[in-house]
């Protein structure tokens, strides 16, 4: 157990280091950016005095290393300040957006992993069958088509032409705005269907292809014959094989979560889903840097957290892993 604790600490330290790097890079970017952040607001009516006062308010006159340390402290405490263009604090806005993004990502991730595993494992087990070939072919196609294009197509067909599903947004105005309220409202689910399915269609291909090749490798294992010799039924043997085939998936999920935000950002824009991604893009378009910074930072944190969890999960699932 000591080995595990040390490993955990090491990974946490690693993650911390990465966060620090990201924050520093962001800080440098903002500092090196051409132009003056106040320039957005400044117009000819501002006097030099007022400009200076604005700069002081934002701490822009302090020596850069003081700004840097203050920046780090704020970020670590999730104190993102106030957006340039809105009244609520950035942290409050972010909380909502994080929740909204999770409301799309989490169901999609779960469905992709669970169904992807089942389909992929079955495809690998029944190698050469029609099911396997169909599953592989479909996955290859879905993997290549850009998810935002699928999203656009889905919108065009199902929303505009057929009018089966709403064209965007998460819940209509005046609808529930608490987590559980949303989960309970059929409106949320109706709005989730299209973007969720598009996200799943992309994300599911990974587990399917991975489980399939993993299963193909496992099928050649000696212990499967032994299981048959023990008189176990085919069903139980498939379970054994799948348990073994799952191992690479855990590492893959870590990679998957890193790429997940890509699809998420695009789909949030297409379907006008009020999540972190959409917030980031809108903030950047309006040059609202506090919001943009916060959004990027939060996304990085979520990615790192998921990576770490996947890493540790791998150790839990494969008994052969030791922590040195």
């Amino acid at each position, binding site marked *: 157990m000591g080995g595990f604790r040390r490993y955990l600490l090491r990974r946490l330290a690693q993650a911390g280091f990465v966060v620090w790097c990201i924050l520093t890079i962001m800080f440098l970017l903002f500092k090196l950016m051409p132009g003056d952040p106040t320039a957005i607001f400044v117009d000819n009516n501002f006097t030099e005095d007022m400009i200076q006062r604005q700069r002081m308010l934002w701490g822009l006159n302090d020596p850069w290393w003081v700004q840097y340390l203050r920046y780090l402290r704020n970020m670590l405490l999730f104190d993102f300040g106030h957006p340039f263009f809105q009244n609520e604090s950035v942290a409050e806005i972010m909380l909502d957006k994080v929740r909204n993004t999770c409301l799309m990502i989490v169901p999609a991730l779960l469905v992709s992993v669970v169904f992807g595993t089942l389909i992929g494992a079955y495809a690998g087990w029944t190698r050469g069958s029609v099911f396997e070939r169909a599953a592989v072919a479909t996955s290859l196609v879905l993997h290549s088509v*850009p998810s935002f294009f699928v999203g656009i*197509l889905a919108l*065009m067909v199902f929303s505009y032409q057929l009018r089966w599903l709403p064209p965007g947004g998460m819940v209509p105005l005046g609808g529930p705005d608490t987590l559980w309220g949303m989960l309970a409202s059929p409106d949320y689910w109706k709005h989730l269907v299209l973007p969720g399915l598009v996200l799943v269609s992309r994300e599911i291909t990974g587990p399917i292809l991975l489980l399939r090749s993993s299963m193909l490798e496992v099928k050649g294992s000696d212990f499967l014959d032994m299981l048959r010799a023990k008189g176990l039924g085919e069903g139980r043997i498939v379970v054994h094989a799948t348990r073994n085939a799952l191992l690479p998936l855990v590492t893959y999920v870590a990679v998957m979560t890193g790429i997940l935000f*890509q699809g998420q*950002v695009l789909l949030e824009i297409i379907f006008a889903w009020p999540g972190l991604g959409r917030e980031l893009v809108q903030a950047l378009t309006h040059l609202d840097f506090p919001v943009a910074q916060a959004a990027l930072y939060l996304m990085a944190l979520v990615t790192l957290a998921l990576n770490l969890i996947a890493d540790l999960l791998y150790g839990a699932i494969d008994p052969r892993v030791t922590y040195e």
Partner: protein
Amino acid sequence: MTGPRFLDVLGRNPSAAVGLALICGFVALAVAAPLIAPYGPFEVAFGPDRSVPRLAPPSARNWFGTTNQGMDVFSQLVWGSRVALTVGLLSALGSVVVGTLIGLVSGYFGGWIDDVLMRLTDVAFGIPFLPFALVVIAMAEPSLGLVILLVIFFLWRTTARVIRAQTLSLKERPFVWAARAAGAGHWAILFRHIAPNVLPLSFLYVAVGVQTGVMLEAALSFLGFGDPHAQSWGIMLNAAFRAGAMRTAWWWVLPPGVALSLFVMAIFMVGRAYEEILNPRLRAV
């Protein structure tokens, strides 16, 4: 990879043959763009009576119809292939070269060099690419060069890790010991003995790189952060989206999306066939 084996794989993977044909098609399209496209990428396709045909459906004159600004969609599609190929190739080659070098050095020398380089890759892995790229582009000027640089920055990490693992195992092989016993220096061993054995694997990542590069450029352009001077397929989709053309002008929306899909699919197929050559276990019996 010998000739007959290559044909063997193509025979077993008809999809790879199709992919190869598609790629040739796209390359031909890109190279012969000036000859094939009736209009320039930003040229308005004036009608015979000097009118601007806005959002015109496909016709004999405009095979894929026109945009809301009266530009010929077909021409834009053809010119877009140039951007796709450029971005794809440059970002793929760049990331593979960087990734391979880092992987080789890291794996071979080990020690603190390995540690430092691997820390760097860890950092790179922790950053969610698209949001980060958006921020960088928002700070600077959107340009194709910047996009390519960003993609290289994103892609090298995967190649580096894989090449490093491969180098680590190759390092212990007898032929390396023999070379060292014969007095070869580190760099000679690295480049004359190990690198050639690692290159086939690197090559596979060129395919991955092209796919990812093109997809990422398309994503960035679609969100409005692409290079406005390059008429890429992603930019086309962005224009269509912003003009609300999805409700009506399917001829504007479908071609760039389909082109993107076919391009990526073609590279993917070829890549998979190539992977099968490298790893015989994946071969169908």
